[in-house]
C-alpha cells in the first residue's frame, strides 16, 4: 500500500468542501488519462473583488486524488483569482505533507482544474499544455515524455547526461534500463547508436577528487617521504603502476628479497593510504606480471 502522510489520510477520510457549490460561477472539469482520474471543481467568485468565496470538488479517483482535491479547495478559499492561479501543484503536495512520486499527478490535476475553473469564470477557453508519460524515475517523479523531450532538446547521449538535465536516474539508479531504452530509441531515430558504459562511472575513478596525473604525483611525493628510511637500510622503492586502488611498487637494493619486504610494503601501504585519504592496496610489481598472464 502507498505510504500516505497523516495529512493525506486525514483529507481522504474527512474530505473538506466535497460536492458542488450552489450557484457556482466558475467550473473546471479535468481528467488525467494516465490513471483515469477526473475532477470537477466548482467556484463561487465575488465579481467585485474576484475573491473565491466558496470552492467545492467532486472527484473520481484514488485516495490521493480525493485528498489533493480537498487540499486544493482549502488552499484557495478566500484567495483572489490571481493569487489562486499562483498555487502550484507542489503547493498542493506540500499542504498534504508530500505525496508519493507516483501520485504527484494528482496534484497536477488539481492545479489544472483550478486553471480551467478560472478560465471558465472569465469566459475563456482553457487548453491543457501538459503531456504526461509513463513514470520512469520514481525517486524524482520524472516521466518518459519529460525525459524524451529533454534528450531531443539538448541532444543528450548518455544516461549520465539525462540525470544531469532531468535528475532522472540520479537516485537509486534502478530506472537506468528504462532511460537507456528511451535514449536508444531517440538516438536510433537520428541514425546514431547508444554507447554504453556497463560499469558504474564512480567505481572507475578514485574518490580523491584528484585527476589521475595529480594522484600519481601525490603517490610519488608520499614515496619520497619514506624513501630516506629505506635508503638508510641500503634499499629503495620504485613506483611501477597505478591501477585504480591497486598500486604496484618494486623494492630495490637491499629491500629486494629482504625477509621484511612484506612488512615494509605494509608500512608503505599505510603511509600512502593516510596520505591519499583513500583505501588502497600496495602490491609488489611481480603481482602485476601475474595479473597480465591470467588476463585479469
Amino acid at each position, binding site marked *: *500500500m502507498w505510504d500516505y502522510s497523516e495529512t493525506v489520510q486525514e483529507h*481522504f*477520510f474527512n*474530505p473538506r468542501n*466535497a*460536492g458542488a457549490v450552489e450557484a457556482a460561477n466558475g467550473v473546471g*472539469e*479535468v*481528467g*488525467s*488519462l*494516465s*490513471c*483515469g*482520474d*477526473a*475532477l*470537477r471543481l466548482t467556484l463561487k467568485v465575488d465579481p467585485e473583488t474576484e475573491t473565491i468565496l466558496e470552492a467545492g*470538488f*467532486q*472527484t*473520481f*479517483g*484514488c*485516495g*490521493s*486524488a*480525493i485528498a489533493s482535491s480537498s487540499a486544493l479547495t482549502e488552499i484557495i478559499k478566500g484567495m483572489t483569482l490571481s493569487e489562486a492561479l499562483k498555487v502550484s501543484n507542489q503547493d498542493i503536495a506540500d499542504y498534504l505533507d508530500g505525496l508519493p512520486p*507516483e*501520485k504527484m*499527478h494528482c496534484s*497536477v*490535476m488539481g492545479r*489544472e482544474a483550478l486553471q*480551467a475553473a478560472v478560465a471558465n469564470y472569465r469566459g475563456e477557453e*482553457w487548453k*491543457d499544455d*501538459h*503531456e*504526461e508519460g*509513463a*513514470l520512469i524515475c520514481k525517486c524524482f517523479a520524472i516521466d518518459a515524455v519529460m525525459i524524451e523531450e529533454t534528450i531531443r532538446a539538448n541532444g543528450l547521449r548518455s544516461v549520465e547526461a539525462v540525470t544531469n538535465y532531468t535528475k532522472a536516474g540520479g537516485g537509486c539508479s534502478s530506472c537506468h534500463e528504462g532511460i537507456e531504452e528511451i535514449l536508444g530509441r531517440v538516438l536510433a531515430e537520428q541514425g546514431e547508436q547508444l554507447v554504453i558504459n556497463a560499469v558504474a562511472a564512480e567505481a572507475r575513478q578514485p574518490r580523491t577528487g584528484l585527476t589521475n596525473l595529480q594522484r600519481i604525483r601525490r603517490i610519488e611525493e608520499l614515496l619520497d617521504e619514506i624513501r630516506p628510511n629505506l635508503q638508510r637500510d641500503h634499499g629503495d622503492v620504485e613506483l611501477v603502476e597505478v591501477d585504480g586502488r591497486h598500486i604496484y611498487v618494486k623494492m630495490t637494493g637491499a629491500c629486494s628479497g629482504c625477509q621484511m619486504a612484506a612488512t615494509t610494503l605494509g608500512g608503505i601501504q599505510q603511509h600512502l593510504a593516510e596520505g591519499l585519504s583513500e583505501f588502497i592496496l600496495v602490491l609488489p610489481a611481480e603481482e602485476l606480471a601475474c595479473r597480465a598472464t591470467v588476463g585479469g
Partner: protein
Amino acid sequence: MDKGIYLDNNATTMVAPEVVEAMLPYFTEQFGNPSSLHQFGNQVGRALKVARKQVQALLGAEHDSEIIFTSCGTESDSTAILSALKAQPERREIITSVVEHPAILTLCQYLEKDGYTVHYLKVDKRGRLDLQEYARLLSDQVAVVSIMWANNESGTLFPVEEMAEMARAAGVMFHTDAVQAVGKLPINLQESCIDMLSLSGHKLHAPKGIGVLYLRRGVRFRPLLRGGHQERGRRAGTENAASIVALGKACEMAGEALAYEERVVRSMRDRLEQGIIEQVSHCFVTGDPENRLPNTCNIAFEFIEGEAILLLLNKMGIAASSGSACTSGSLEPSHVMRAMDIPFTAAHGSVRFSFSRYNTMEEVERVIAAMPLIVQRLRKLSPYWNGDAPADEPGQEFAPTYA
C-alpha cells in the same frame, strides 16, 4: 478492531499452522545440507523426498522426478519459457494471452526485443479465449505456448487441458502458469498433455520463496541456473529445505481440502457476491461467472475508484485488492480489465475478493454489511454521480478535459 477479515488470498495466503510446525525443525536440529553424506544431511534428504511425493500427488504427476523445486512462481515461469527457447533454437515464436501475469508478459515483451515473435491471444468481454484463433497460430515455428490456468484477477479458467492437447497435436510444447489453480481445483497432469506447469507455495498456505516447475519426463529441457547437481542438475543451488518440507505439507493439506474448497469456499464466495449485488446498484461481476475459481469474485463498482474503496475497507479491517490503476504502482489500469473491454469508469472501481478455507460465513456477512455504505460515501464525491443515480448520460453530463 479484531484481527481483521482477509479476503486477498489470490495475493498471498496465511501459512497454515500445521505447515509452520512441519518446517520449523528444518531451521534448527535438521539444518544439514541434503547433499551431505553424514546423518545431518541424510535426514533432510529423506524429508525432501517425502515433500516431492506430496507435491507429485497433488499435481497427479506420473513421476516424482518431474517435480523441480524453485524459488517462486516467477522463476518457474522464466525457467519454462527460456528452456523451451534454448532447447529449440530454430523456433522463434511464442503463443500466450493478453491477460497473463506479469511473470509471463514482461518476459515475453523482453524476448520480443531479442527478435522473438510473441502472439498474444485476446479475450472477449467475459475474459474467454478464441480457440480458433489459437489453432491458427500453432505451427512448427512456435517454441512454446504459455497460458495461465486461472486468472488471478477475475478467477476465469482457461481450457488449458484442451489447449495442451491441441499443442501436442501440432508438436508444440505447452506450459501453464497454474499458481492460482493449484490447490483450488483437482489437477491430474499424467492424464493431460501439459508439458510444464508453474506453481507458487505462498498461494496455497506454504511460505513465500518456494515454487515448483513441473517438467514432464522426456520434454527437452535446458536449466536456467547451472551449478551443483541439485534437482538432478536442472535447478542448481542448495535446496530451501525448510520451505520444501513446508510446501509438501501444504500440498498434502490442499489435496485433502479440495472438496471443502469446492463446496464451502464456493458457497461463501457466492453469498458475498449475491449479497453485494443485491444491495449495491450499478455494479457487476467481471470475468466468466460460470467458469472460474471457486474462491475468487471480482466486482466492478461503477463511477468510483478502487483504491479509495480499498482504503475505506481497510479502515474497517477488511482486506481486498483492486484492478484500479492507482493500486498497482504502475498508473496503468489493470491489463486484465482493459483486455475485457470494461469501461474505465468501472474498471477503475473493480475490487477482487479472494477467499481461502480459513474464511468464515460470519466474515462474509460483515463485508456485505459494510460495502453499501462505502460505495455510497464515495459516489457522493464522484462527479459521475448525482443524488442516488448516475449523472444523466455520464459521458455528456461530466466531460473533463483530459491531459
